[in-house]
């Protein structure tokens, strides 16, 4: 095992899969010669050359259209949309074409592709470069949605996403590119749709994703130490497929559910999970379900304001400790 950063794990997973399968090709803006604006794809151009790793114009619709056309005809493209905010300029290709093609054609069209994108706030980039839009993706039938919380998961889940026969939106957390952890050497694949119980506990279930996971873990430590509360922290890893069983199992044990999400409040993924619990776990719940979210407001740029908006360790501690 070596310590890799989250960004190094991206390149490691891509290289791993590009070595074993020459149908895997990669395109995006500034991704090849420059190795990406987040430096997450450094080295791929040198290893795999200009036919497999390609710089594109600023044409997101063409990037994703090209990826879809290639996927339909036997390749396994990976496309980068630099910031997830930019999905808005190519959303049609994602939701009306890529997500629906197989169903509309009665199973004929294949779209095995991955769209990687930098997601989330904390970098003080302002409202158009800081959004968490994993809930947009979850709302569209036909897309798989992955959002890893650490470098090891990046490697394993990105490899699985590339191998997956369905289209995957792979959200990389911009604020975590520099974070490091032990990452298994050699071939490493984590199946999609299996949540990770990051902390075991008995009093409250905290469901989190991506950057919210380390915050939830930290909060769980504080809640244990300062409030004597035993929290179970579930790292969802994927929104689709959703590992509902892990949530159900945990809530049956704890009787309490808190979700921590970075996307703005309304129709966030936490609402979906809350609604599942409110329907299927009604008789198991001992207290109201609580959602911790970014408020339903565009993100401010400056640190002091952005930090008020995105869920913090403090907010999680306070919310959980004040639950009924």
């Amino acid at each position, binding site marked *: 095992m070596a310590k890799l950063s989250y960004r190094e794990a991206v390149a490691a997973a891509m290289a791993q899969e590009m070595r074993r399968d020459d149908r895997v*090709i990669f395109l995006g803006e500034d991704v090849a010669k420059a190795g990406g604006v987040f430096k997450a794809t450094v080295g791929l151009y040198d290893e795999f050359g200009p*036919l497999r790793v*390609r710089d*594109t*114009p600023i*044409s997101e*619709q*063409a*990037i*994703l*259209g*090209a*990826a*879809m*056309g*290639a*996927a*339909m*005809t*036997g*390749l396994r*493209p990976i496309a980068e949309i630099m910031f997830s905010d930019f999905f808005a300029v190519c959303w*049609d*290709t994602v939701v*009306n*074409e890529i997500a629906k*093609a*197989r*169903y*509309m*054609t*009665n*199973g*004929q*069209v*294949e779209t*095995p592709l991955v769209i990687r994108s930098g997601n989330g706030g904390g970098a003080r980039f302002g409202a158009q470069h800081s959004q968490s839009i994993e809930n947009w993706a979850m709302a569209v*039938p*036909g897309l798989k949605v992955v959002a890893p919380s650490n470098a090891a998961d990046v490697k394993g889940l990105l490899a699985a996403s590339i191998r*997956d*026969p*369905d289209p995957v939106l792979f959200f990389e957390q911009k604020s975590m590119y520099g974070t490091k952890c032990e990452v298994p050497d050699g071939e490493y694949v984590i199946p999609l*749709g299996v949540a990770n119980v990051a902390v075991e506990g008995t009093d409250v279930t905290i469901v989190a994703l991506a950057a919210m996971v380390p915050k939830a873990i930290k909060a769980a430590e504080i809640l244990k130490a300062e409030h004597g509360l035993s929290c179970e922290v579930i790292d969802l890893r994927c929104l*689709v*497929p*959703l*590992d*509902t*069983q892990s949530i159900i199992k945990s809530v049956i044990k704890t009787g309490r559910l808190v979700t921590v999400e970075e996307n703005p409040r309304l129709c966030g993924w936490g609402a979906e999970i809350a609604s599942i619990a409110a329907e299927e776990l009604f008789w198991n719940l001992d207290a109201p379900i609580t959602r911790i979210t970014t408020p339903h407001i565009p993100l401010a740029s400056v640190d002091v304001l952005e930090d008020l908006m995105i869920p913090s360790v403090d907010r999680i501690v306070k919310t959980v400790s004040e639950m009924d």
Partner: protein
Amino acid sequence: MATAKKPPEKYPLDNSERLDLYRKMAQCRVLQQRAYDLFMQNLVKGTTHLGQGQEAIAAAFGQAMKEDDYTFCTYRGHNHNHMRGVTMTEVLGELMGRDIGLLRGKGGSMHLTKVENGAMGSYAIIGAHLPIAAGAAWSAQYRGTEQVAVCFFGDGTTNIGTFHEALNFAKIWNLPVVYVCENNAYMEYTPIGDVTAVPNPAADRASAYGLEPILVDGNDADVMYQTAMTAIEKARNGGGPTLIEALTYRHHGHSRADPAKYRPEEEVKEWMKRDPVVNYRAKLLTIAGIKEADLKSIDDDVEAMVNEATEAAKNSPPPPDEIAFTDVWADGGAQWRN
């Protein structure tokens, strides 16, 4: 401003090929006419966008393309699909929402697709398929297969962003893709000239992508065949993309029962005189060795074909309920959770 030109006759057709081209157009015509009639009889569910008047383009490309080439087209794509071997029964069955339909009713009139024949989809969001066609061409180039992607779209489509992105993309990567703008003079109800900065929406923009302007008579099957062959061969031989503007006209409304009252009578009359099927038929009769009987026999065949297809579609039941819930994912199912 571009003017329509005749391409040189580099790819001569013999009489049997000419008859084949006529047969193709005749098939398209009766198929579309039948779709219209069935719609008026309330036997078509949903909508239709028909291609009467534009058959020369679909047929000429159908003749020029190889079996493993890719076709990308729009909601107005019945002819293009049929030209790639999608049967009349599959088309009419789909329109009528029968189990025998090409997509068993899951896609409908606007989404005909038959991947095994290279008919890579009919797209109902304006412009969406232009980059996708570039992607298929990129894939062919990468795989080294010499396949060509042909992408059909309308005049109105030249004003949406994807047109621009796709053309630039195709050129810089020198992709084997042929973009065919079927300029039928209207978007839905609005004349294209009212909303476009140049007189020829595709040809006058070719230079913005480093491409040669190509403006041709889309109602002349021979012209279209030469144009198609030239562009396809260029693409196949590594010469990169072509953008073609083919001037044509739709004989009927935009969709469904649209009576197309927004078009000046004179204009309609003028264009009806330029009916590509009628005119090609007449032209063939002036060629030594082709007789009325040859054409009549084609017409009869084609009529029989469409009647048979209509019967087959009518006799097919609606699709079974359970297929509503299949094929969201590659595993055949629709599960998003455990």
